[in-house]
Structure formats: structure tokens, C-alpha cells
């Protein structure tokens, strides 16, 4: 079970970069991203603080994982 999971993970990791140019026209244009680029719209404006709060919760609760976020921002370059 586990070796298959690792293989699938490796295969996806290799395939993902190729998909960067998949052509679906974006409905939010790059020049319309001013609000998304605002620092208040970042998932992790203060990553150290969020990691610390996650650590406190994991030490006292039975749950763990799936926290954090990526993406958004200005989409420049």
C-alpha cells in the first residue's frame, strides 16, 4: 500500500510542472488582481505566528494536519 502511494506522489510531482501551460482562459485577468495582491488577502501573512498557534493546538488536541494555504497574490511573472 505504502510503496504505491509514494510512486503516485512521485508521478504527480513530475507531471504537475508540465501542466503549467494548460490553456484555459483565466476569468480574473492579471491586471484585475489588485485586491488579491493586498497583504490582507494572504493565507499566511505571518507564517511563524500561525505555525506557533498550530503547535499549541496540536499539543492539546487530538487533531492534526491540513492547515495552511498557498496561492493567490499578484500572479506576477
Amino acid at each position, binding site marked *: 500500500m505504502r510503496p504505491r502511494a509514494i510512486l503516485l506522489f512521485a508521478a504527480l510531482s513530475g507531471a504537475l510542472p*508540465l501542466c503549467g501551460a494548460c490553456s484555459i482562459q483565466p476569468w480574473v485577468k492579471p*491586471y484585475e488582481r489588485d485586491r488579491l495582491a493586498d497583504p490582507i488577502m494572504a493565507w499566511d501573512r505571518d507564517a511563524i505566528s500561525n505555525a506557533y498557534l498550530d503547535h499549541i493546538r496540536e499539543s492539546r488536541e487530538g487533531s492534526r494536519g491540513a492547515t495552511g494555504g498557498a496561492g493567490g497574490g499578484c500572479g*506576477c511573472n
Partner: protein
Amino acid sequence: MLRSSTLLKRCAMAAIVVASTAFAASSDASGPAPAFTLTTLGGQPSGLSAYKGQVVMVNFWATWCGPCQQEMPLLDQMYKKYKPAGFTLIGVNVDKEAPPVKLLLERKPVSFPVLLDPANQVSKAYHVDEMPSSVIIDRKGQIRYIHRGYKPGDENDYQDRIRQLIRE
């Protein structure tokens, strides 16, 4: 499981086909440059027609775009250098409001003309699909190159293209 691997295969094939144009920052383009009239920060109207016969680079930028600000001083240097040879750089700003643009240009002034496109009409007309974008137009008003994004060192690419068009 099966559906996602088929999707990945299709994406991979599309990617290989599009790869040459998508991954290259500067690509050849063609077609007449759409005319436009916008206002300067001072409220004066201006547009592409004012620079007929010159080589023009239209640079789309925003105050919230990091790489745009990185290239501004280099664009300014390039403008000063090639202006005597018949080159103009127009900075088209896409911010929705003027005050942040005014504030930024007060702190970091540039000598090339800056026009405001808050309704994004010109951005749409030029099919801007990356920030920043630089469109290089020849003396006859035809679009020749589109440069998407900015990474340090790209200014050399700009200069090569501009010199080539000036010589034509």
C-alpha cells in the same frame, strides 16, 4: 483515479504543444497596435498617435506588482538612452485608483510618460495576460514583440529588440 490520470496526460500533451510560446518570456507577435487615448496623472489626454513614426514600448504596470517596480528604474534608463534615436516608452498603469500611483511616482519618479488605464480598456485591447507586460511596436505601428513578466536581466532583451527596430 483513472479520470485524473487521463486529465494529466491531456494537460501534458497540451503543455508540450504550447510550451515554446508559453515558457519563453519574449515572443514574436504581429498585427497593428490598437490605438488608444488615456489621461496622464495631470489629467492631460495622450495616446499612441502622439508617437507616430517612433519605436514605442508600451509597458503595463501596477503599484501592487513587485516585478513591475523592480524594472521601472531600468526602463527609465533605457528611455533616456534611446529617446534621441526615436524611441518612446509609455507606462500604462492599471491601478483602479490614482492616489497610490501619484504617491509612488512622487517617491520614485520616472521621466517617461505614464498614462492611467483604470477601466482596463487598453489592457483588454492588448490582451495583457501577465503582469508586467511590455509590447514593442515598430515605426509603422505594428506590434513586433510581447514580453511577459520581468526577471532581472530581461532589460538586455528589451534593448536588443529596440535597437533592432530602431535600425529598420
